């Protein structure tokens, strides 16, 4: 049933793309405004039909959305796309690539370096491109191609209520100096001993907090809302931060926190067979994924309860990548 529907949708997409291509030929200069320019439109290449790409993702909101974006984009480029968007962990996902169960999936630079190559958090660059180059070199040795990072990064961040930030004049982490001894920080139970978390805030920023409250990551906003903590370790692309002035992220001005930009990883053997459209499409579809955009997409799934596939399609459409 699903196969039939997917095929119908595929035919429809191809038909629409062809129709638009024809229309675009007729009317030159149809305006680039609004991001809906047909110049961005992904063109379906018949040569790609015989290449089967299985796009994977891990099993949480942001990964579902990213997986859908890549899958739908590659499908628009003419590839025969299958999806496997429920991999339990990066360990399982990496094994799935190596076993050929999936072609590729999006992984965070910090996770790839820390989990796959045991790079200590302290040595993972805060700069997305440096982190990417490092991960790319390590992954190449494993026969895996790493494509360039998305514009947005999903990193840990020190956050607080905007009202607190205003009251205490907090802008970046350094501005906590002289104030932190009166503030409570909430974070994962391990945060206190992680160099990219409380241990680093103490060591690199010279901060000391009144109290550290260990909490489950699911409670990271609850503790701020309930007043159980003044500061909490948040994730930069959180749905709760979309269009919200309620919370403020303090800038990591000393580059303590490792870069967490997603990079699409794929088996080199399949990527080579897939031809130039593969890399081109991956880089193109992630092009508009800035931090506010990703927060918004996450909030449509987490807060508005929309389906990741629909949210991804809406993103691709409004960016002009598909019609």
């Amino acid at each position, binding site marked *: 049933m699903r196969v039939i529907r997917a095929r119908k949708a595929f035919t429809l997409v191809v038909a629409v793309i062809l129709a638009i291509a024809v229309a675009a030929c007729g009317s030159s200069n149809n305006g680039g405004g609004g991001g809906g320019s047909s110049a961005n439109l992904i063109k379906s290449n018949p040569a790609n039909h015989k290449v089967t790409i299985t796009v994977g993702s891990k099993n949480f909101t942001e990964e579902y959305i990213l997986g859908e974006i890549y899958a739908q984009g590659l499908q628009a480029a003419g590839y025969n796309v299958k999806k496997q968007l429920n991999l339990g962990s990066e360990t399982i996902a990496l094994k799935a690539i190596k076993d050929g169960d999936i072609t590729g999936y999006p992984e965070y630079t910090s996770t790839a370096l820390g989990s796959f190559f045991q790079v200590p*958090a302290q040595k993972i660059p805060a700069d997305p491109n440096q982190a990417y180059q490092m991960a790319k070199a390590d992954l190449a040795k494993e026969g895996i191609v790493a494509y360039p990072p998305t514009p947005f990064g999903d990193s840990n961040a020190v956050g607080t209520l905007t009202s607190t930030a205003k009251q205490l004049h907090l802008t970046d982490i350094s501005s906590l100096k002289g104030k932190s001894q009166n503030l409570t920080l909430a974070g994962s139970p391990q945060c206190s001993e992680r160099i990219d978390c409380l241990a680093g805030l103490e060591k690199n920023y010279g901060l000391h907090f009144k109290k550290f409250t*260990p909490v489950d990551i699911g409670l990271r906003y609850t503790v701020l809302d309930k007043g159980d903590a003044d500061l909490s370790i948040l994730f930069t692309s959180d749905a709760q931060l979309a269009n919200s002035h309620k919370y403020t992220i303090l800038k990591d001005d000393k580059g303590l926190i490792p870069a967490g930009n997603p990079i699409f990883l794929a088996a080199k053997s399949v990527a080579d067979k897939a031809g130039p459209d593969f890399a081109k499409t991956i880089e193109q579809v992630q092009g508009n994924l800035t931090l506010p955009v990703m927060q918004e997409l996450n909030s449509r799934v987490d807060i508005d309860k929309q389906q990741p596939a629909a949210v991804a399609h809406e993103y691709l459409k409004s960016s002009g990548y598909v019609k």
Partner: protein
Amino acid sequence: MIDLGAPLGFLHSFTGAFDFIFHQREAVTGGGVQVGGPAEILHLTWTQFYVSALALAVALAIALPVGLVLGHRGKGELLAVGIGNAGRAVPELGVIAFLAAFIGVGLRNVTIALMVLGIPPILTNTFVAIRQVDRNAVEAAEGMGMRPAQVIARIELPLATPTIMSGVRTAAINIVATATIASIIGVPTLGKLILGQDTYGVDGVVAGAIVVALLALAVELALAGMQRALTPTGLKLQRARRSA
């Protein structure tokens, strides 16, 4: 790289776990942060014990009197056994999330969440234990002119002690083992190690699990000893004769 095979790695991790318990080492995440070692392990074990003892005390204070009174009157079986059974089905993580939204995180939340786990076995066992006390003994006591409170305190409670204590032991084991989750609601316990493989490595995870198991065992032994001490000599003799 990633080692998924090697079943012997499991045995090896025991050696690593004991090393984690007895010697400090740098965290997997680096930066010269020291983790493990006797001081940290003792501290976490103490917190785990402390929150467990507190929750058990509160559970006892609630469930024991209610069970005694209901058992003595022979009423409310539905309540005592029903709450007992329903209570066992309550998902602990759900309770925690619920409480976090209302009273926030911290010791209060932990105590209530763990208490919920301790009440059912104590309540049900107390009720059943009192109901099973020899009716002849109770009638004899009433015939001698004892008041209801005296009957409970001097006849029913002593005779029901073994069954009540086995409920308390079940509650204690449940609470001690579950107190690991206190580490995600504001109180750092051994759960911090168990949940933190990326920070403490497999050695830390296994070390946490071993220490929780040892703590549960120690509590069980202590309560078993207490049960022996509290059981009236008469009951002990009766049992010895029966088993002889």
